């Protein structure tokens, strides 16, 4: 019976049982075995109401949803095109830059593929890029900006580490800073490869100052947004939740009141969809607080550490093993569940090997980002397959060069801690 329940839960997970229910059941079962009153699961869950940073999550998410429903994606693409379109492989660079920016604001929930992919894919095809490359690019783009502020996974990682209370405090701001260089590295590798691949192609348009002016004027209202958010956070003017509130207010005023691209009656609908995502994430977070407590009470992290240490003696060896494990995890589990379930287990082990918690966070998220593209079950592959009506197998073929390049950047990020820690 002791093993039957976990086994059944694993099977049910694979069959599609909601993860919150799996985590809740596991926590209930663990506390039941330990002879603890089961009300503790709900008491732990209630800690959701004791974390001030969580406020940022619904606010940023709604801002991202409003942006994706407005004309902002089209203006962003037009502006990037005016800025970068005259370069060789200009449109590919446009796609990369615009997607990274957009994903940072919307979280890697597939919104980028839907909102931007629909604009970029036809444009790429029309511009003569082959189908495989175009598909691979928009599929990759769905999780590309994950390491840039204010992405949700960065915030969530900091929250999980803060809750564990075993590492020196990791602030959301530190993670926002740490993600910049690794994120740029990924963009540079993908961009560099795209330029090299398309080196014989003549750029479709010469640089056109008038066109740039037009694009700038069209995007006039949205231009201050990154400054407000990123400038506010990086300069320390705003706390993260304050930046989230200001972002939402700004986006609301611009898209709903000034540009009027989102009619008021659509708002309830957008709120609803944003909150389905937020509710799902926070529910999993809350129940994982209980399951994590059960794991820690049961001494699981210590045992894991002893086990790993008896097998692996160097830091690099540990990091390599960690990457393999996380890549597999990222392909199987969505980023939010993976964060709240696995970080509490690997953080103590990583600290034992002298890995900086901020560096660990960047490694973790870089792995998860690649997991989105990893066959057979990476989520981006399925979203793109659904959105562009192509068989999933075609997307495996289309995205593997991108996957390889991201793996290369992952190796660099892992073995050069300075990339993550240099800007702290």
């Amino acid at each position, binding site marked *: 019976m002791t093993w039957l329940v976990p086994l059944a839960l694993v099977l049910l997970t694979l069959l599609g049982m909601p993860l919150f229910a799996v985590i809740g059941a596991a926590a*209930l079962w663990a506390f039941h075995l330990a002879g603890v009153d089961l009300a503790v699961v709900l008491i732990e869950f209630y800690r959701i109401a004791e974390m001030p940073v969580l406020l940022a999550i619904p606010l940023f998410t709604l801002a991202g949803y409003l942006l*994706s429903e407005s004309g902002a994606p089209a203006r962003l693409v037009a502006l990037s095109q005016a800025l970068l379109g005259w370069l060789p492989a200009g449109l590919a660079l446009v796609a990369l830059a615009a997607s990274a920016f957009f994903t940072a604001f919307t979280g890697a929930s597939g*919104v980028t593929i*839907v909102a931007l992919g629909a604009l970029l894919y036809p444009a790429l095809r029309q511009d003569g890029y082959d189908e495989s490359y175009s598909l691979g690019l928009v599929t990759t783009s769905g999780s590309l900006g994950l390491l840039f502020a204010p992405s949700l996974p960065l915030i969530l990682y900091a929250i999980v580490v803060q809750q564990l209370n075993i590492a020196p405090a990791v602030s959301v701001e530190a993670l926002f800073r740490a993600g910049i260089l690794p994120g740029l590295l990924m963009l540079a590798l993908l961009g560099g490869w795209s330029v090299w691949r398309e080196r014989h192609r003549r750029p479709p348009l010469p640089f056109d100052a008038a066109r740039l002016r037009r694009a700038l004027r069209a995007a006039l209202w949205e231009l201050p947004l990154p400054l407000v958010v990123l400038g506010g956070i990086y300069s320390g003017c705003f706390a993260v939740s304050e930046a989230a509130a200001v972002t939402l207010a700004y986006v609301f005023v611009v898209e709903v009141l000034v540009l009027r691209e989102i009619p008021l009656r659509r708002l309830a609908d957008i709120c609803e*969809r944003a909150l389905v995502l937020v509710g799902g994430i926070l529910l999993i977070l809350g129940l994982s607080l209980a399951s994590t407590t059960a794991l820690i009470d049961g001494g699981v992290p210590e045992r894991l550490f002893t086990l790993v240490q008896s097998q692996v003696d160097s830091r690099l060896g540990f990091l390599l093993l960690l990457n393999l494990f996380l890549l597999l995890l990222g392909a199987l589990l969505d980023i939010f569940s993976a964060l709240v379930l696995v970080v509490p287990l690997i953080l103590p082990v990583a600290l034992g090997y002298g890995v900086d918690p901020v560096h660990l966070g960047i490694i973790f998220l870089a792995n998860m980002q690649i997991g989105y593209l990893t066959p057979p079950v990476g989520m981006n592959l399925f979203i793109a397959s*659904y959105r562009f009506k192509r068989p999933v197998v075609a997307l495996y073929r289309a995205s593997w060069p991108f996957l390889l390049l991201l793996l290369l950047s992952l190796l660099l990020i892992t073995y050069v801690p300075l990339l993550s820690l240099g800007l702290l």
Partner: protein
Amino acid sequence: MKWLRQGRAVAERLERLLLSLLLLALAGLALLQIVQRNLLGSGFVWSDELLRLLVLWLCLAGAMRASRHGSHIRMDLLARWLPPVGQRVVVRLVQAVTALVCLVLAWHGGRFVRLEAEFASQVLGGWPAWWFQSIVPLAFAVMAWRAVLLMLWPQQAETFEGSADALPLPADRTGEGAP
């Protein structure tokens, strides 16, 4: 079955209203707090606490809404490859277990709230804490109820055909996102 459908329509409208109002309150209060902190030097004593309670409410309200069509985050490694009949059987099984888990959580959530009521815990400078905490067992009970409905009528669940269904896609652009 008519009362069930009507009750459902009312519940859905109430839920939509609740979600929007909560979000509005959260955003408004968060902004107000910034203004107060920067212009007046201090916020209400209890605005931090209220914001945190609102986040809890939003979390559970969103979670309840996600249960309506079974759009919670999940893995569907095996179910994806099953034929439609098999998928429906799997949905029934999975929703039955989910309902059971939610029910146990609701039950112990109720005990937690009762305990807090007996201790007369207070929030927001004097209000009984259990008023605000009651959402916890209530939400899990609603989620259990919706899981039961999905168990009985699995076709109401989002299909496994393209897990993108589980994602909140902009409905108007794809024409086939979450309803």
